[in-house]
Structures are given as C-alpha cells and as structure tokens.
C-alpha cells in the first residue's frame, strides 16, 4: 500500500469508504509527518488533539455509513481563519493570545463536511507579503531546494505555511486566502495546485481582513480534482457576508477530466514583459502547446491596463488595510502595551504588535486616503480598477480562459528580494490583475526550472465560471503530468 501521506484526497476518501484505513490512521500518519517536518515551521499552532477528536467522530460516521464530502481528510487551516476557541493569530504578535469566540463560515463549512484540522498554518503577518517572511512566528521553509544548494527557500506568500504543508505531504489539503496572489504564487513556489475563486464565491465572515474588496478564500491541494472537492465544501452564499454572492455551488469535481476541445484559451500579450525570466517564458509557451495539443483553440488577447494593476493594487489594498487594522488598538482584545495616556497606549500597542511590512502598508494606506491625496491616489486607483475589470470582460468575449505564468520567478532564498519592498511586490505582477478584477484563477505546477524548482502556470476564468477553470486546469495537469517531489521527500524515500 502507498504511504497514507502521499495519497490524494480523492484516493484517501475512496480508501476510507472501502475501510482500507481509518480516519484516525490517516490523521496519525499526517501528525507523524508533521512532527518530522517541524523545521519547515508550517504551523503557528498545532491542533493535533483536536484533529484526533475529529478523526474519531469521522470514523464513527464511516461506521454508520454517514460519511460527508471531506470526511476524515486532514488539512491545514491558514491562521487567518477564525476558529472557535482555538488561537488565531493572523501571523501577528498583536493577536498572539487571541481565541475567537466564533468560527469562520468557510472553516465551519469544512468541519461540517468532515475535514480534520491538523493546525493553524503560518502566513505573512495579516497576509501581507509574498514570501512568508513577515510572520511574527518565523519563516516557513519551502520543502523544495535548488539542485546542489541547501539554502532555505521561501514557500511564497502569504499562505506560505499552507502551501509548504501540502507540498511536504504533512497535510492533504489546506485553506488559503488570496488578496493579490497569496494562494496562486505559493502554490507555484511549492509545486502544488491552488485556486482563488471568484470574489464573492466564499464567505469572508470570520476570516481576518486584510483588504476586504480583494480578499478571497480558496484551497490548496496536490491535484486539480482535490482542489475542486475542497472548494465545493468551502464555497457558498453566506448571509453574514454582504459581498458573498447568492448562487448555487456547482459540483466542481464533475468538470475535472472533461474535454477541452474547442475551448478558447486566451494568451494576453501584456504578460510578456521585458526582461522576463526565459525559463518562465519557455514554460508558458510549453503550456500553450499543451493546451493546443489537448484540442483547445489558442487566441491572442490584450489586457491593455495590466501595467497599472500592481500600482493601483498597492494603493487600494493598503488603503483598506489601514482602516481594517484600526481595530487592533489594545482596548478590547489582543496585545496591549500600557502607555501614560490613551494615545501613548495606542502607539505603544501598535508599535509593539505590528511588524515592519504591516506598518508600511498602514502608512501608505493612511496617506492615500488623506485629504488632498484621496483623488490623486485612491479615487484614481478605483477608476483604473474598473478599467482592469473591463479588460477581462472584453477578453472573455474572445476566449473562455486565460493562460499566463503565475509568478515571474521560481522560489527564491530567504533573505533575497528584501532589499526594497518594490522588488518583493513585483512577485505578484501576474496574479494581481485577476485579484483587482475579482476573476477566478488557478495555479498548477507544469515544469521545473533549470535548478530543479517547480514552476507554475495560471489559468484565469470568467466570474463564477470556476467549472471551466477546473476543466482547463485538469487538461493542463494531465498534459504536464508533474510528478516531481521536493528533495526532502525524495531523500527520505531513498
């Protein structure tokens, strides 16, 4: 029998149903793997006892023949999702001891469907970062390494702990959130699959906000089909989130494996940037050929406002974050550092509680919303955002999905790209436009770089047309047949 930790979710569910193993055995295998991979620092809080209790309940349901959609599947929960009674930090010192008295809707949906939570996954502080190096709970280490180089690499961010855990086979799947690429970029860096659904598809209730008009929950897994199963559970209308959309959730897994004959795949010329990494460009070309070979029709399209996406993103996201993070004031919950008076207490609390990147974005956001600058920055960015959205809508007149690289480079070493924030921000250049437009997007591994690191491609779809995205992604997945494993796992296997 294959190792329990290398099964896909689909395989595990089949095995559980056939009583080949129990949810408890599956969970214990993942706990053991997690303990062995502690140096990766995937979890801020391990919830193994909680997982064992959930596994027991799951086994009872299997015994009674009442198993649910994800029954017995051990997953990692990004520590941005509030979990009732379980510490939720958002990767920040300011919430070091915060235990929410409520459950986020999405985590609640997954527990309803029998998922088992192994731990709260590490992330960039308040999801602000592209390398998981802004977490107050230490860096996450990517299970992948460059050939002949043992420098620790970043897993990407902000959902770095989630992606690394799935890649390292210590969780079968994980939740993430994507504001400007925080699911897709770490999926690409860690050689796994991750989808950001359409804005409004998953409830944001109980997910700690970074930038409310961009934040969206989504899953990580090692296959497109597993992502479809996880999203099936996570998605749905929630009356507690006014921006969630009331439309039925299709059975996404049914799209997996469907033919892409005649599907129109758009290739946006603006994503071919000057000075691009030739390996990435080559991979993209390869992906185009794979889709063509699978029967899809390739269409050249233009998204003319792409070049403004990153700049406008770094106006809108910080603006919303500056307001969203005002509640961390030391008055009602979280860290409080007493000062001589009210303002001193505010300053001492926020100075001690927030890290450098969070402070930088609060400052940028406060600035762009200030009287006299509002029109020049925030308002203009909002107008440009509308144009970016219109670009996509126009492109979808000509094609059904868009194919682009996910990130401009493979995973980089911890400490690289830290010289100035803009270099780091450029990591999100291919993921941000779809976030600004609210479009769904999936990243999946398609090949390896010269030094042995996974490279991902991104498929973007029409609003609420995740089905077509899954269909296209499963065709690409099949063509790419990416079976490489991180070195750490290969060494163990050896």
């Amino acid at each position, binding site marked *: 029998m294959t190792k329990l930790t290398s099964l896909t979710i689909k395989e595990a569910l089949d095995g559980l149903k056939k009583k080949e193993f129990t949810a408890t055995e599956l969970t214990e295998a993942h706990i053991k793997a997690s303990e062995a991979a502690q140096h990766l620092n995937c979890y801020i809080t391990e919830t193994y006892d909680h997982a064992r209790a959930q596994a027991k309940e799951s086994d009872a349901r299997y015994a009674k023949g009442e198993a649910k959609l994800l029954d017995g599947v051990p997953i990692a929960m990004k520590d941005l999702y509030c979990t009732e009674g379980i510490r939720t930090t958002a990767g920040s010192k300011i919430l070091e001891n915060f235990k929410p008295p409520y459950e986020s809707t999405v985590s609640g949906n997954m527990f309803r469907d029998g998922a088992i939570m192994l731990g709260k996954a590490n992330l960039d502080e308040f999801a602000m970062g592209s390398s998981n190096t802004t977490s107050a709970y230490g860096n996450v280490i990517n299970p992948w390494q460059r050939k002949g180089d043992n420098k620790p690499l970043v897993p990407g961010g902000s959902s770095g702990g989630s992606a690394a855990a799935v890649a390292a086979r210590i969780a079968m799947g994980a939740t993430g959130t994507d504001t400007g690429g925080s699911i897709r970029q770490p999926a690409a860096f860690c050689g796994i699959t991750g989808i950001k659904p359409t804005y409004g598809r998953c409830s944001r209730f109980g997910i700690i906000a970074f930038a409310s008009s961009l934040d969206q929950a989504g899953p990580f897994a090692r296959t497109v089909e597993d992502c479809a199963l996880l999203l099936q559970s996570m998605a749905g209308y929630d009356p507690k989130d006014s921006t969630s959309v009331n439309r039925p959730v299709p059975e996404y897994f049914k799209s997996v494996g469907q033919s892409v004959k005649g599907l129109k795949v758009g290739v946006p010329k603006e994503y071919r940037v000057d000075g691009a990494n030739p390996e990435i460009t080559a991979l993209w070309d390869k992906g185009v050929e794979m889709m063509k070979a699978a029967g899809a029709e390739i269409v050249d399209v233009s998204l003319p406002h792409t070049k403004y996406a990153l700049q406008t993103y770094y106006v809108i996201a910080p603006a919303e974050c500056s307001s969203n993070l*005002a509640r961390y004031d030391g008055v009602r919950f979280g860290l409080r550092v007493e000062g001589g008076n009210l303002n001193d207490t505010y300053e001492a609390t926020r100075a001690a509680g927030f890290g450098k990147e969070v402070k930088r974005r609060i400052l940028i956001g406060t600035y762009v919303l200030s009287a006299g600058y509002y029109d020049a920055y925030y308002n203009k960015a909002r107008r440009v955002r509308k144009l970016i959205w219109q670009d996509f809508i126009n492109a979808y007149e000509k094609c059904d999905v868009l194919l682009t690289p996910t990130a401009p480079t493979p995973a980089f070493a911890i400490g690289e790209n830290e010289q100035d924030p803009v270099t780091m921000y450029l990591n999100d250049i291919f993921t941000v436009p779809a976030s600004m437009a609210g479009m769904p997007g999936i990243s999946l591994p398609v090949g390896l770089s010269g030094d042995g690191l996974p490279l991902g491609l991104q498929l973007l779809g029409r609003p609420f047309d995740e089905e077509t995205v899954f269909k296209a992604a499963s065709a690409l997945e099949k063509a790419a047949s990416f079976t490489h494993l991180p070195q750490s796992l290969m060494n163990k296997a050896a």
Partner: protein
Amino acid sequence: MAHALLKGETGDWEMVIGLEVHAQILTKSKLFSGASAAFGAAPNTQVSPIDAGFPGMLPVINTLCIEKAVRTGLGLNAKINLYSVFERKNYFYPDLPQGYQISQYQHPIVGEGEIEIDLPDGSTKAIGIERLHVEQDAGKSLHDQHPAKSYVDLNRSGNPLMEIVSKPHMNSAEEAAAYVTKLRAIVRYLDTCDGNMDEGSMRCDVNVSVRKPGDALGTRCEIKNVNSVRFVQQAIEYEARRQIEVIEGGGTIKQETRLFDTKNGTTRAMRSKEDAHDYRYFPDPDLLPLKLEQGFVDNIKSTLPELPDAKKKRFIALGLSSYDAGVLVAEKERAAFFEKVSNNNDPKMAANWVTTELAGALNKTGKSLDESPVSAEQLGGLLKLIADNTISGKIAKDVFAEMFASGKDAATIVEGKGLKQVTDTGAIEKIVDEVLAENPDKIAEYKSGKDKLFGFFVGQTLKKSGGKANPAIVNDLLKKKLSS
C-alpha cells in the same frame, strides 16, 4: 414672524442657525448586527462581536433601518436616493471599536426636503432639509467610574441613527426649538424614532453664526450633543451673544466645535478646525452600494400615516381654532386621543374637554396622557351624555372629576348618583310653580321691570331640582309663566 434681531453695540445682528439632529431609528436590533438596540440595559450586555469590532466580523444591513430611513425621508417631503453608499469615517477612540464609523457621506439615502415649523405667534415657516443619512452610533465612554481610568460601554455601539441635516434657515432660538419639536413630532408620527431626548434617542448638533442683516454668512461654531429643546434654545442664545461680543470687541470668530455646559448655560471650545480629524472617508468595501427599487419606496409611501401638518389642517376644517388644532397635533398620542373622543361628538367640544378639563386634571396630578384614568372612550361617553341632554354641562364637570378619581364610566356615575337630568316638563312645571308660589314679591318686582330677576327664578328652580332640571325647559316654562 419677522426675524428676531439681536441688539449689539454696533447695531442689529442676525443669527443664522442650522441643526444636525441624530435620531435613533426605532428598531429592535442594531444597524449591522442582531444585538438588541434597547435603551437602559446593564453595560456591555447588548454587544455582538460585530459591534465590538472583533477580527473577521462583517456588517450586514438591517433592512428595517433602511425602510424607516426612507419613511422618514418621505415624511420630510424629501428626495429619496435610490442609490446610496456606506462609507467608513476613520478615527481612533476607545468607544469606536472598529476604528471607523460606518456612515454615509457622498451618497446619502435621502436628499433635499422641507418641513414647516409652527411658531409661538401662530405663524409658520418653511425650513429646508439638506439631507438625511444613516450611520451607526459609537459606544459610550464613562469617565466618572474610576479616578484614573475610563470605562467603555458598547451597548450603544452599532445602534442605528439617522442624521438629519437642516439648511441654515433658522434665525432665532425659538425657530430652532420649533424645528426640533416639529421634527420630533414627525418621527414619532412615522414611528421611526421614539424622540426621547433624555434617553439620547434624539441629540442635536447646533451650528450658529451671526451677521449684520444682508451681509454674507459669518463663521460658524458647532455646539455638539445638545439633548433637550430647552438646552438648544439656551445654547443658541448664549453662543450668538458670545459671538457678537467677540466681533464687536474687535476679534474674529474661529470655526470650532464647542460644548454646551448644562449647569451654567454657556458654551466652551472643544477643538478648533486646525485640530479637526482627517476622517479619510472611503466606501466601505464590506458593504455593496445600497440600491433601492422605486417600488420599495412607493410601498412605504402608501403606508405613511397622516402627518401633523395635514392633521392640523383637517382639525381646523372641523371647526377647531388653529391654536387648539396645533396643541392637539403636537403629540401623536394626544391627536389620536382627541380623534377618539370626538367620534360622534362635537369636535369643538371634544377639543375643549381634551385641552382644558383633561389636560388640567392630568397636569394637576402629574400624569401623562397615556396614564390618564379616563380613557378616550370614557370621555367620549361623557360628552354624549351632555349632547343628549342626560346631564348638563355643569353636572358634567362634577361627573368628570368623579371619573378621574374612580376610573368609572360617566353613565355609571350618573346612574348611581341619580344625576340624570329631568326633562319631564310636567315635573319641572311643578317645581317652577312652587318657586313662583314662594316668591310673590319677586314676581312683582320682575313685572315692574327688574328683568335680571329672571336668573333668580332659574337658579331657584335648578336648585330645587338638585341641579337635574334641564335648564332649557326651565327657561321656557318660566318665560311662559312670568309673561302671562
């Protein structure tokens, strides 16, 4: 009413006043959470994680609040905006849990309107409404519970408010008072706010400036959180005087926010324009723009009650004086009481009884109308006994006193005490004959020209009947007998 001008050393001054009234929308739950919005609960017992600004919590609009805001807008004869936007007003304060207040800024739900105010001399004046927007209330900071610390009560946090902004159309403290009174009457009629200023469900921010008549507007000061009609008047009177003194003393008025001190009736500076917050308003990304259907507005319009002005006009048409009509419609409950009393009774008489006899008795005993021992139906019953000659108006007053004391129906009292008016002509004639027989000398005097003695005979007859003889019949009989 002509503008009330204030005399200064350099001549006359005109006040220019605008009001921002915060009215709590009358709903069971808060604007964006399901927590109770009731007044008076123990601190921090009506707080959901949403109201406390907990991580990951999201606001969801309470549609009843929107309905009531639209209803109020219609009651203010204002334009309803089918598209409005909730924005965040950002500032730090311990009783503002989210670090921002969700309010409406560039796109309020209600635009321009107009109401008519009633002035003490019986005249009216139209006052423009600039806008009405919906916003959440902040919590309450308690600074007097501990020598060094402040406490925060979040029960009020997230309560639904309407901010109703007038145009600067008022020129005296009386007009401002009449405006607040009228606004309160309107929201009470509409059932959109209870108007209880002492519980804080209506609070006023008062903008005051002064100028020489005909000059451009002066610099204004805003007096925050004034919580009674009387205080509004006092604050305006003090503030206008203060500004005139500053200007006449060679100074200039600084635009600033001031506080009203209820103890000595003065205002004092709170913060100047330079210290004003930059609120960094921007559309709340947690809430989509609010889009209303015209049909939704039309439905509300079709259920609007008759408002004070319309009611007053109708009462005047019934024959009431403008003054009586004004008194009756000022309170929704009083108008309703009157309408029940006047049901099948003479409206003028009903108005008299409600505004004088009943109001006097309530006043004397310190009771409000809803505590009245005499119900509207009971008072109506009494009036019917007068109208059908069962009792005289004089007896009715005694019966009313008895009703007020015992809560019994008029008919029961009249029956029990045998106060029923005698209308049997034969019986009354007997008494008249007796009176005439006992007073031959008075008859002689009467016949020799002392007309006034007629009243003496009437009085004697009524007295002998124990007040029960119908005065009209007594009159007729005496006239007939004395002229024969």
